């Protein structure tokens, strides 16, 4: 109620705008600084000062009013305060007394209290000491535990303990010295653990490097056994197919007995690897260990793949490849089970390095090998390696490529070896028909190669159409086929039949055929031997189909499919050609022999005075020879060849006689000599006729008989013995009777023709006849001269 009147009075004073503003500012408690500065700056400080003094006066009036109003209350308050003062003094005295009294009473208790405080302090110190010691005891017991673990080589709990010490206690160890020692030894212990673990791991590396070869060998031998089972299965299948009757009761069951030793080898221990890897991860250096593992294993691999220079590759390649196989089996296991120790790309990279090295070694060694079986031996082991590692997921295309790359080399070596063997056989063959006396001999040399129908069993002794060289050669060819197929087995994914066929053709053409031709042209064989050689070639030519079937069989192609195939071996045609070459050689040989007898023609008395009763000596010899020739050839040669040979012989004899008459060796001859030739020819013609029918050659349907081969000489003799030789000039008669004769030859021969009818003592009874012939001959001579 007081405040309101004051406000009203302020408003009512009406001191002007400035005063009102100032009063408002002051009542609001605002800062007057700016206003005062403004006043002085504007040059009107007096007005401001007056206003401020005015406000002060008003305030003083208000204060006085307020004091007057409360004066009475103030007096009363002061009186009351003085009363309180007296009370306070009184109370003070009482307290002093109480205090003195209390001091007397409780001095003993205070002493006890001091003792108590001291004891509390001691307790606190001891508590702190105990706390400190507890920590120290804990740390030290952890250290002791850690030492124990390390002593027992239990590194994982040791590391756990170290971690506990390091993370949980190290910062809190109150004793500086202990803290320092522990801090110093933790890394040392970790380093020790790392060293120990690494040492253990290195021991494992030594161990696994030694074991790798065994692991590889066991794995490869398992692959080998699996392959053997495959082969047995395939062989049984081939037999069943060969018999071509379904025998369901021939299923054979075998009990697979596991080899426990091999199993234990393949269950190699990787614990040290896991342990080392885990330890390094716990130590925080897992990456370092992974790097160490990878680098050292790579170095081990490179060491393992250095081939021995002191040992032949043939001996060293198996341990080498087994070592590599074992290495990668181990790596695959580590990759699968060691939780990030190896990466897929690392293993692949290592494998690529290894296979490139192996490929290089193989190429180098294959290039240097000179025996086919060695190459095959290594190839087999390489394919076993391929089979083994591909089961573990490794890519083996490069191995297959190397093998494919050297197939030509391999087959070249096979061809060389086969050539040697075949040449030996041909050189040592007696070229006589084989005489087989026992059934097993027959089976071995005839049935095995299907030279006769399989269901026929002959009577013994059996005389074969071939000599002993033929079955021997067939065995070599079959062996070649087997070796060729062996090279491609387990290494070629495509159909190998066509490839094997190609190489078989090469064997038969480049090796067998060449060797046979060499024998044909070598002129080292007698006539009967040459015949046998020709017969052998015939048999071998027919064997081409058998070889082809055998190839198909080994390549896994069913017999009926192979038989239906129309593409045969080129070698068949080539051998056929060689057969003809042999026949030609036979003919040449026969003719050469005949020439030896025909030389006796030189001994003939061409101016004999009496007609002979007997054939000339040369003809006797020739006939004996021809008799032998035909009887031998008849047993060995096919009819076609027999025909060719005898025809050739006959033609040769005819030509020989003709040549003799034409030669300078014969200056002149008489009709009696011609009559001798006639006797010779009659004998020869009789022989030819007999053989032509007796040997069955007539069945060939040839238009030309053996006698036809003698036609030229026959016509000449007929002309010379004719009573009217001048008829030769008559075209009709000449065409009919003397068609094979040549003008020039007749002219030469007729010039040599002399008749001794002019002799002083010629028979009177023949005079007329001889005269007529003489005249006719003279006419012929003249006309031939005119003609030429």
């Amino acid at each position, binding site marked *: 109620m007081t405040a309101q009147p004051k406000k009203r009075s302020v408003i009512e004073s009406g001191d002007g705008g400035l005063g009102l503003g100032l009063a408002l500012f002051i009542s609001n408690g605002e800062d007057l600084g700016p206003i005062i500065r403004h006043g002085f700056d504007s040059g009107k400080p007096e007005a401001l000062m007056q206003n401020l003094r005015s406000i002060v006066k008003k305030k003083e009036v208000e204060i006085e009013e307020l004091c007057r109003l409360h004066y009475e209350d103030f007096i009363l308050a002061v009186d009351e305060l003085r009363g309180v003062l007296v009370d306070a003094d009184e109370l003070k005295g009482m307290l002093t007394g109480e205090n003195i009294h209390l001091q007397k009473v409780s001095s003993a208790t205070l002493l006890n209290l001091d003792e108590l405080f001291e004891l509390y302090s001691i307790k606190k110190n001891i508590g702190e000491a105990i706390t400190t010691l507890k920590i120290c005891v804990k740390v030290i017991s952890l250290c002791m535990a850690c030492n124990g673990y390390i002593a027992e080589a239990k590194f994982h709990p040791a590391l756990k303990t170290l971690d506990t010490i390091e993370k949980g206690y190290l910062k809190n160890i109150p004793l500086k010295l202990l803290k320092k020692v522990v801090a110093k030894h933790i890394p040392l212990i970790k380093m020790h653990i790392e060293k120990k673990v690494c040492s253990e791991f*290195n*021991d494992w*590396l*030594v161990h696994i*490097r030694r074991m790798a070869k065994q692991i590889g060998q066991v794995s490869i031998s398992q692959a080998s056994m699996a392959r053997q089972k495959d082969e047995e299965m395939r062989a049984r299948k081939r037999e069943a197919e060969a018999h071509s009757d379904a025998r369901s009761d021939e299923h054979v069951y075998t009990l697979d007995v596991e080899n426990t030793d091999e199993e234990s080898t393949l269950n190699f221990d990787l614990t040290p690897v896991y342990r080392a890897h885990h330890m390094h991860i716990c130590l925080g250096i897992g990456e370092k260990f992974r790097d160490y593992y990878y680098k*050292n294993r790579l*170095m*081990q691999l490179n*060491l393992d793949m*250095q081939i021995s*220079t002191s040992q032949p590759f043939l001996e060293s390649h198996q341990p080498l490849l087994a070592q590599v196989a074992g290495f990668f089996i181990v790596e695959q296991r580590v990759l699968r089970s060691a939780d990030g120790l190896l990466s897929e790309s690392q293993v692949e990279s290592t494998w690529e390095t290894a296979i490139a090295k192996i490929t290089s070694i193989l190429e180098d060694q294959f290039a240097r090998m000179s025996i086919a079986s060695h190459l095959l031996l290594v190839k087999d082991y390489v394919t076993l390696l391929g089979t083994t590692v591909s089961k573990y997921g490794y890519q083996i295309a490069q191995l297959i490529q190397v093998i494919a790359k050297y197939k030509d080399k391999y087959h070249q070596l096979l061809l060389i070896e086969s050539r040697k063997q075949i040449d030996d056989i041909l050189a040592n063959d007696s070229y006589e028909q084989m005489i087989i006396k026992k059934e097993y001999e027959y089976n071995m040399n005839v049935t095995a190669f299907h030279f006769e129908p399989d269901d026929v069993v002959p009577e013994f002794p059996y005389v074969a159409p071939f000599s002993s060289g033929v079955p021997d050669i067939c065995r070599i060819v079959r062996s070649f086929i087997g070796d060729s197929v062996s090279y491609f087995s387990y290494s070629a994914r495509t159909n190998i039949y066509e490839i094997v066929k190609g190489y078989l053709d090469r064997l038969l053409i480049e090796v067998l055929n060449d060797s046979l031709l060499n024998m044909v042209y070598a002129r080292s064989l007698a006539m009967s031997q040459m015949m046998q050689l020709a017969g052998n070639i015939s048999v071998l030519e027919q064997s081409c189909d058998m070889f082809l079937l055998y190839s198909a069989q080994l390549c896994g192609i069913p017999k009926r499919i192979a038989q239906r195939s129309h593409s045969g071996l080129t070698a068949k045609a080539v051998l056929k050609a060689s057969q003809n070459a042999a026949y030609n050689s036979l003919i040449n040989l026969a003719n050469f022999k005949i020439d030896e007898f025909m030389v006796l023609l030189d001994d003939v008395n061409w101016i004999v005075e009496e007609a002979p009763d007997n054939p000339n000596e040369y003809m006797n010899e020739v006939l004996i020879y021809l008799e032998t020739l035909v009887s031998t050839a008849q047993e060995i040669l096919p009819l076609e060849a027999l025909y060719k040979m005898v025809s050739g012989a006959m033609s040769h004899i005819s030509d020989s006689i003709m040549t003799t008459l034409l030669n300078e060796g014969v200056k002149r001859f008489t009709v009696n000599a011609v009559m001798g030739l006639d006797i010779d020819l009659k004998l020869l013609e009789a022989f030819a006729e007999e053989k032509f029918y007796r040997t069955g050659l007539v069945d060939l349907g040839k238009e030309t008989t053996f006698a036809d081969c003698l036609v030229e000489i026959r016509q000449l003799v007929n002309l010379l013995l004719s009573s009217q030789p001048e008829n030769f000039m008559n075209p009709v008669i000449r065409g009919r009777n003397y068609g094979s004769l040549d003008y020039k030859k007749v002219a030469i021969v007729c010039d040599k023709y002399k008749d001794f009818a002019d002799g002083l003592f010629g028979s009177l009874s023949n005079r007329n006849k001889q005269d007529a012939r003489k005249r006719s001959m003279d006419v012929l001579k003249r006309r031939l001269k005119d003609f030429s």
Partner: protein
Amino acid sequence: MGGRVDHEYSYLFKMVLIGDSGVGKSNILSRFTRNHFSLDSKSTIGVEFATKSLQMEGKTIKAQIWDTAGQERYRAITSAYYRGAVGALLVYDITKRQSFDNVHRWLRELRDHADSSIVIMMVGNKSDLIHLRAVSEDEGKALAEKEGLFFLETSAMEAVNVEEAFQTIITEVYGIVNRKALAAKEAAAASAPLPSQGKTISIDSAAGNTKRACCSA
């Protein structure tokens, strides 16, 4: 002081380290002379040498060890440094079979250029790399026996057998030198004309000869 120390030895033995490049010859040298091993090893260029003094039977022996480059291109300059060598360490790397196979070639070089009485020790280094071993210890022993060499496997990295290898050669050479000195002494004693006076003079003369011979070596 340095000068005095340099001259305070009874014998100076020159030794050479030979073998293929990279087998660890330089690390063997540094391990023996400075007890230092370096993983980051660079190929030696030409020839380097270091010395170390040892005590033997109260005498100071100073070993002067020459380290050679194993590489082919430095081969020409190395024939000279064989001169005067009393011992040789023929080093191969047990993880490199080729370095072992080449021991024969290094032996031939020694026999062509070095003194015939040189003491040779064959050293298979890097024995700590057990997991990369390519040459077994037995193979090393067999070859050493066959060629009449001393043999040890060492690890310069782990300081295994390095000291022993040098010690063996030095002991052997010291024995040879002593036997030579003794023989000289006996020969001198035998030829003395006056017993008492000659003996005294001979002893002094022999000692002098021995020292001089070692210095010249």
